[in-house]
C-alpha cells in the first residue's frame, strides 16, 4: 500500500468560502495551469502564489472551493505542489474535482486550531487521516473512502483509468 503520510508541511491559513474564481481566476482560464498558478488566490491572499512551496498545505475555514465546476481550481493546487487542503467543509463539486485530479482534501472539524506558518504532519489510521500539530496535538479528520484514496495514490482519475485499461 502506498505510504500516504507526510510531515513538516508548512501551513497557509485561509478564511471561509474560498471560491473557485479566486483559486482559478476567470481572466486566466484561457491559459494552462502555469499561468493560472501565477494568479492563484491573488484576490484573497496576494503573497500565496509567489511564496508557496512543494509540500505546503492550505488550512481554511468552512466551504472551501465554492462556486464554479472549473477543475483548474483544484488542479492548480496540485500544480503548485500542495500536499493537501485541510478544512472543516468543502463544496461538494470541488471535493469530487479534487480527488479526480489527485488532490488530497482532509475534512477536519478542528482545522481552526491550526495556525499560520506552523508545520503539521498527516498520518492515516486505516482510511481515517489524522493531522498532527507541532505540539503533538492530533486532529481527527473524516474517513476517506478507499475508491477516492485510490485516485490520490494514482495521481488522479486519468492515470487510474490508464492503469486499469485492459492491455
Amino acid at each position: 500500500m502506498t505510504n500516504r503520510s507526510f510531515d513538516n508541511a508548512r501551513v497557509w491559513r485561509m478564511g471561509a468560502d474560498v471560491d473557485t474564481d479566486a483559486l482559478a481566476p476567470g481572466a486566466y482560464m484561457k491559459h494552462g495551469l502555469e499561468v493560472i498558478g501565477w494568479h492563484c488566490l491573488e484576490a484573497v491572499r496576494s503573497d500565496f502564489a509567489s511564496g508557496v512551496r512543494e509540500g505546503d498545505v492550505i488550512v481554511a475555514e468552512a466551504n472551501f472551493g465554492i462556486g464554479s465546476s472549473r477543475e483548474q481550481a483544484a488542479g492548480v493546487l496540485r500544480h503548485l505542489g500542495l500536499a493537501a487542503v485541510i478544512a472543516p467543509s468543502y463544496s461538494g463539486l470541488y471535493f469530487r474535482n479534487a480527488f479526480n485530479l489527485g488532490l488530497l482534501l482532509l475534512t477536519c472539524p478542528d482545522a481552526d486550531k491550526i495556525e499560520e506558518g506552523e508545520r503539521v504532519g498527516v498520518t492515516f489510521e486505516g482510511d481515517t487521516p489524522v493531522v498532527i500539530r507541532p505540539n503533538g496535538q492530533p486532529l481527527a479528520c473524516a474517513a476517506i473512502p478507499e475508491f477516492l484514496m485510490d485516485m490520490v495514490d494514482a495521481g488522479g482519475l486519468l492515470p487510474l483509468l490508464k492503469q486499469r485499461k485492459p492491455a
Partner: protein
Amino acid sequence: MSAAVSQTLAQKLIARASGRAHVAVGEVVTCKVDLAMFHDSSGPRRLKPMLDELGAEIWDKNKVVLVLDHYVPAQDADAQKIIQIARDTAKQWKLPHVIDSEGICHVVLPERGHLKPGMFCVGGDSHSPTGGAFGCYMFGIGATEMLGVCVTGQIWVQVPRTLRMHWSGRLQRGVSAKDMMLHMVGRFGMNGGQYQAVEFAGPAVQALSMAERMTLSNMSAEMGAQAGLIAADETTLKYLRGVGVDPAHLTGSEQWHTDEDAEFEQHCFDACTLSPQVAAPHSPANTRDVGEFADVQPNIAYIGACTGAKLEDLRAAASVLKGQRVAAGVQLMVAPASAREQAQATQEGVMQTLLDAGATVLPNSCGACAGYGATFPEGSTVISTTARNFKGRMGPASVNVYLASPYTVAASALRGRISDAREVLA
C-alpha cells in the same frame, strides 16, 4: 408482494439510473448517464487530449450535447483557438448535437428538447442543476470526471438527503423566482445545501413558469446543493410538448415525485410576504431586502446569464422600463440567454422596449458572468441578474456586484439607485 418503499424524487431518479428498485440515503451507487452536456471551456479542449491519451472514444455520441457559449464570440486569439478546438473536435468526433453560439448551455439544452422527466444527466458546468426544473437528476462535474463519463457512460453518486423548500402563497407582482432563491441562499448560506438534493415544492412553485422554475434549480448551485429538483406537472409537460418532445416519451412522468411519507427535511416559506431581494458584494448569501440598498447607485445594470436573461426575465425588465429611459450615468446591458428567446422577445416587442430604454444588446453567450472575456471596468458598481458576485469574478477586485432579479435591475437602472420594482409597477 411487499409494499413499495417510500422515496424522495432524488432517490427515485437515482434508483432508476442505478438499476435498482430503491436506494437508501448515504449509499454510494453507480449510475448510467442518460445525457452528458459540456461546453467550449470544459469540453473538447480538456477532454480531447485525455481521450486521446487513453485511446478511448465517447461511449454514446447520441447522449452527448456540446454547447459553445463561454468563449463566443471570441474576444482574442486565445479564445478563438479554444472555439476552433471545439468546432474541429465536434467534426472529428461526428457529434450529432452541437449548439454553436446560439445561447447558454442550461437554456438551450431544454429549449432543444434534450431534457425529460426521469432522466439522469451530468453537465460540465456548475449551474447544471438547472436541469432539475424538468424533473431530471442533473448536476455539474469537472472535465476529468466528464472524461470518466465519456469513457464509461457511468458515474458514482452518494444518495443525497432531500431538503424540501415548500413555498405557500403567491408572489407579488415585481417579485420573482430570483428573489425566492436569493432569500434561500441568504438563509442557508452558500454551502447550506451540503451537496444534498434540494427540492422546490408548494403552490408558489407550481404557479411558476418553466423559465422561473429553471432560475430556482439553477441557483441551487449557490446553495451548495448537488441537485435542485422540481417534480414535473402539466406546466412541465406543456413546455416539453411545445419544444417538440414526442408525447410518447413523456408518459409516466407523474411517477417522478417525492412520496409524502418519504423522509425529507422540510422548510416552509410564504411567497406573499417576500420582498425583492438583493445580494451585496461579494457573496450571493449576503442577501437583504431591496429597501436596505436605496443609497447604492449602480453605473452598470446587467441583464444576462442562464440565471437572469431568459425570455421571462427580458419580459420582466421590459414591463418595468416600458416607455421610459434609464437614468443618466447608468449603462444598461442585455445579453439574452438564447437566440431563440431573443427572437421571441423581438417578436413580442420586448427587445424594442429595452432598446428604447437605452439598452446595449450583447451576444447570446455567458459574457461577463463567466468572467472569461469581456468584464466590467475598474471601480464599477454593477446591479446584475447573474448568479455570483465573488470578488474578482466579473472584473477587477474593485468591481462591486449586487445580485437581483430582472425587475429590480430594471427599476434600479431607471432610477439610478437600487430600487423596488413594485413602486414602478404600481
